[in-house]
C-alpha cells in the first residue's frame, strides 16, 4: 500500500524520532537508509513506518535489493552486530541481526566452539539474512537444518512492537511463534537478537570424500548411512560443471566429529552402508568442497526443496533428463525422517525451474494460512517486501 510520503519527508520525520542519526536518501532508488543502534530504535522506526504505511525493507548483503516504485525505508543492520551473550555452560550464543556469519564463526572458533550449520550463500551473510533466506543451510543428519539451531529470538513485528520469548528449551507456552517469524521470511517480523545453539569444537574431525560409482544405488543407501553413522554433515554431489580425470563427477562428502575410536567406528559404518556404490577417492575433501564454490551460478538459477525417499529416487533416475536435464550441479543433504534436501543449480541466465510447487518452508495449506494471517498482522503491508529480497533466487 503506497504511503504517498516523499523521501524528504520520511527523512525529516525519522530525524525527529531518532535524533542524531545520519539518514541517507537515494532519489534514484526511492529509499531512505537508516542504521538503528538497538532494538528500541527499531521499535521507534518501524512504529513510525506502520503509522505512515511506509514499506520497510532490510538491506541484504548477499542479495540484490528489490527495485521498488514507492519510497521506502531501507534498514541497515550494520550497527547491530554485537555478540551480546555467550554461555559455555548452556552451549548458547546470542548475536544481533547484523552480525556477519563469518565474524560469528571466527569468534566462536576462538572460544573453541562452532555453529552446527553453514549458510548456502556464503559466510558474508548477516545473521538475519541467514535465518530468513530461502535455504536450509548446509546441514547433516546429526544437528538438523538452520531453523533447528535457533533456541530463542527477539524480533520487531510490523507494528513496531518487540517480540521476545523466554530463554528455555522446549517451551509449551502456546504456539512457537519464533518458528513462524522465521517461516514468514520477514513478513511476520525481523529478527533482532538470536540465541543459537553451539557446540565445542570436536577433538577430532574426520573429513571423508568418497567417489560415487553408482549414483542411484548410493542415494538409496544414503538413508541407511545417515541413520547408522549419524554424520555431522553429509552431502552427495552430482557435478557436471567441473569434473576431470581426477575429480569425480559424483561424490559424497562426509564429516564426522568426536573421539578417535568413535569416529573410526562411524567411518566404518559409512563405508559399510555405502558398500560398492562408493569408494574412497584420492582427491582431498577440501578440493571437492571447494568445487561447490566454483560451481555456484547466478541467483535465479537455483531451486531447492525437500523430497521423500520415492521423490529422491525418481529425481536420481531422471539425472540427465527431466527436471535436472540442464543442471550442472545436483546436491543432496538431510536424509532425516525420510526427507532429503535437494539443491539444483543451473547455468547463468537460465530461468528458475522449480521441480515442485512445494514451498521450502511449509506446505501449500501452511503457506495459505501464513499469508492470510500476515494481512491481519500487517494491514498496510509494510513488511511484505522483506521476503521478496530473495525473489531473484527463485
Amino acid at each position, binding site marked *: 500500500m503506497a504511503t504517498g510520503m516523499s523521501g524528504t519527508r520520511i527523512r525529516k520525520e525519522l530525524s525527529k524520532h531518532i535524533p542524531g542519526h545520519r539518514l541517507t536518501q537515494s532519489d534514484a532508488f526511492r529509499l531512505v537508509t537508516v542504521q538503528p543502534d538497538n532494538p528500541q530504535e527499531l521499535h521507534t522506526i518501524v512504529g513510525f513506518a506502520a503509522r505512515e504505511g511506509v514499506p520497510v525493507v532490510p538491506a541484504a548483503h548477499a542479495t540484490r535489493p528489490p527495485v521498488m516504485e514507492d519510497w521506502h525505508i531501507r534498514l541497515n543492520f550494520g550497527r547491530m552486530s554485537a555478540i551480546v551473550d555467550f554461555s559455555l*555452560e548452556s552451549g548458547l550464543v546470542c548475536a544481533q541481526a547484523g552480525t556477519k556469519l563469518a565474524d560469528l564463526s571466527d569468534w566462536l572458533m576462538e572460544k573453541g566452539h562452532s555453529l552446527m550449520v553453514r549458510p548456502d550463500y556464503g559466510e558474508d551473510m548477516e545473521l538475519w539474512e541467514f535465518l530468513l533466506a530461502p535455504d536450509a543451510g548446509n546441514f547433516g543428519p546429526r544437528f538438523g537444518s538452520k531453523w533447528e539451531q535457533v533456541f530463542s529470538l527477539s524480533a520487531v513485528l510490523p507494528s513496531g*512492537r518487540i517480540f521476545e520469548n523466554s530463554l528455555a528449551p522446549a517451551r509449551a507456552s*502456546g504456539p512457537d*511463534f519464533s518458528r513462524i517469524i522465521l517461516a514468514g521470511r520477514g513478513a511476520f517480523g525481523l529478527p533482532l537478537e538470536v540465541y543459537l545453539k553451539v557446540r565445542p569444537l570436536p577433538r577430532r574431525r574426520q573429513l571423508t570424500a568418497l567417489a560415487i560409482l553408482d549414483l542411484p544405488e548410493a542415494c538409496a543407501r544414503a538413508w541407511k548411512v545417515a541413520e547408522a553413522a549419524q554424520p555431522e554433515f553429509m552431502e552427495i554431489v552430482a557435478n557436471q560443471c567441473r569434473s576431470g580425470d581426477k575429480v569425480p563427477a559424483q561424490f559424497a562428502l562426509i564429516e564426522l566429529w568426536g573421539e578417535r575410536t568413535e569416529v573410526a567406528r562411524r567411518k566404518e559404518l559409512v563405508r559399510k552402508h555405502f558398500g560398492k556404490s562408493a569408494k574412497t577417492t584420492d582427491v582431498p575433501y577440501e578440493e571437492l568442497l571447494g568445487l561447490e564454490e566454483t560451481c555456484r551460478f547466478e541467483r535465479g538459477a537455483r531451486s531447492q526443496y525437500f523430497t521423500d525417499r520415492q521423490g529422491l529416487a525418481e529425481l536420481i533416475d531422471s539425472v540427465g533428463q527431466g527436471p535436472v536435464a540442464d543442471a550442472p550441479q545436483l546436491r543432496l543433504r538431510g536424509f532425516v525422517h525420510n526427507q532429503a534436501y535437494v539443491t539444483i543449480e543451473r547455468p547463468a541466465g537460465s530461468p528458475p525451474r522449480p521441480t515442485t510447487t512445494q514451498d521450502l518452508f511449509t506446505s501449500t495449506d501452511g503457506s495459505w494460512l501464513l499469508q492470510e494471517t500476515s494481512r491481519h498482522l500487517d494491514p498496510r503491508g509494510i513488511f511484505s517486501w522483506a521476503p521478496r529480497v530473495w525473489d531473484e533466487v527463485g
Partner: protein
Amino acid sequence: MHGQRVSDELRKLLGSDKVVTDEQYLLSYASDMIPTGQLRKLAGRLPSRKPLSICFAEDVEDVRRVVKFCAAERVPMIPWGAGSGVCGSNVPVEDSIALDLKRMNRVLSLVPEERQVTVQPGLIGEELEERLNARGLTMGHFPSSIACSTVGGYVACRSAGQFSSRYGKIEDMLLGLEVVLPNGEVARLGILGDGHYKDPVLDLIAGSEGTLGVITEVCLKVEPLPEKMDFRGYAFLDLEDGIQCMRRVMQSDLRPTVLRLYDPLDSLMAGFHSKTSDGEDIHRAAARLTGLKGTLAAAITELNAAGLAVGLFRPSLLNRVVELLPTRALLIAGVQGKNAKITEQWDRFTTIVAAAHGEDLGPAPGHAWYKRRYAVSYKQSKLYQAGAFVDTMEVATTWENLAPMYRAIVKALSKHVFIMAHFSHAYPQGCSIYFTFAAYRPTERSRKSTYQQAWRAGLEAVQRFNGTISHHHGIGTLKRWAMTRESPGGQELFQAFKHALDPASIMNPGKIYNIDV
C-alpha cells in the same frame, strides 16, 4: 441460539447417537483435571459452567460439520481428548459445546520401514504404544498420564514423556498434521500435506490448545523397540553436583533413555533413604529434633501420611525441617541398546558421575523407579480427600540459570506450600524442573487463595530468570496471566492468527491468551 436448539441442530447434523445432553455427562465435561475444579467439587459445589451438549465426532466430516455449524451460529466449542489436562484448557465458556474426539481412535497407517505412523487424535497413548510394540516399534512417548490421555491432546499441549532425553517431546516426533480450521476447511501440514518434516506451521498448531483448529490426524515418527533397557541410581550430597552431572551427560554424545534428578525431599518421597557420606543416618538426625519439628521430621522420614498431613497445615515449618535433615539427591538414569553398548554407556556414565562427586548406587533404585513410574499421579486424590490440595508446576530454563531458578522458586513457594522437585526432560542447553507442592487449608476459599498465591509466587520467580512458565502442561486458563511476560509481542501474533482464522472466536476461547477477537 438457545441451548436446546443448539443440541437439536447438532443432532440433525450428526445423528442423535453422537450428541449427548444428559446432565451427568455435561457435568463430567465441565472441567478437566485443573486442581481448582477438584477443589470446587470437593467442597460439594457444582461447576459454574457446563457445556450445552457433547458431540462425539467419528470422522473428519463430523468435525467439519460441527465446526461449520459453530462458526455460523457463533457457538463456542471446546475440543476434548481425554480431559486429562491440568491447566484448564478444556474448561467450558458460556454457552459452549464440547467436541469429544475419542471415537476417532484409529491407526490410519503404519509404515515400519519409513518409521512413521499416522493416527486419529482420539487414540489413547497407551493403546498406540501397545499397537506399535506388537510391530517391534515404539513411539518413545511415555507421559505419566499415558493411560488416560490422547495423541491429539499431546500435540495440542506439547506434551513430554519420561524418556524425553532420548526421544524428545511430542513436537520432536511430529511429522505432519491434519487440522480442521475454524471456517471448516481442512489444512494438511508437514508431510501429511506437501510440506516437509520441519514444517514450521506444525509449530503453530502444536501448543495451540485447540484455539486455532481441531486436530484430526497426526503423523509421528516411531523408532524400533530397544533390544534392552537398563537403569541405575546415583546419589549426590550436593544437588548442584547432580545438576552438573546431568548437564555433562546431555552435552556428551550419550543419549540416555531416562535422566531424572530428585531434590532431597523428592528423593525421600521416592523412597530413597541412605546414609550421608559422614555416616549419619537420617532417622538418627530426625530423632534429635524435638517438639513439632521432631514430629514432622519423623513423619517425613517414615513417609507417614497422617503426620505429613498435619505438616501441611504449616508448610513453611515442614520445609524448614527438611532443610535440617541430612539428605542426598537421587539421580535415576537409564540407557538402552545391545548388551555391549549398555556396558559401554554405563562406563561413560561412571566417569561423568565420578567427576561430579556422585556415588553409584547400582541398578536397584533405577529399576524400582521404572517399576513404579506411573504410580505417583494416582496418589494425589488421597490428599484432596484429606482436605489438602496438591499440584505440579513444570518450568524450564538454561543450565546456567537452573540452580538459581530452582532456589528462587523454592524460596518463593515455601511460605505458602510444602514443596519438592525433580529435574527431568534434559537437553544440551537446559532442563525442566517439575515441582510438586501441597498444603492444607480449612476452607475452600483459603485453599483457593493459597493455591493462587503459590502459583503467582512461583511463576514470578521463573520469570525473573527468563525461564518458561510451561514445559509440557500448557497454559490453559491457569497461567495465561503470565503470558505477557513469557512472550512479549506473542499476544499480537496470536491475535492476528485468531483474526485471520477464527474471526467469530469459536475455537476454545479464553485459553492461552484472554483476548477478545
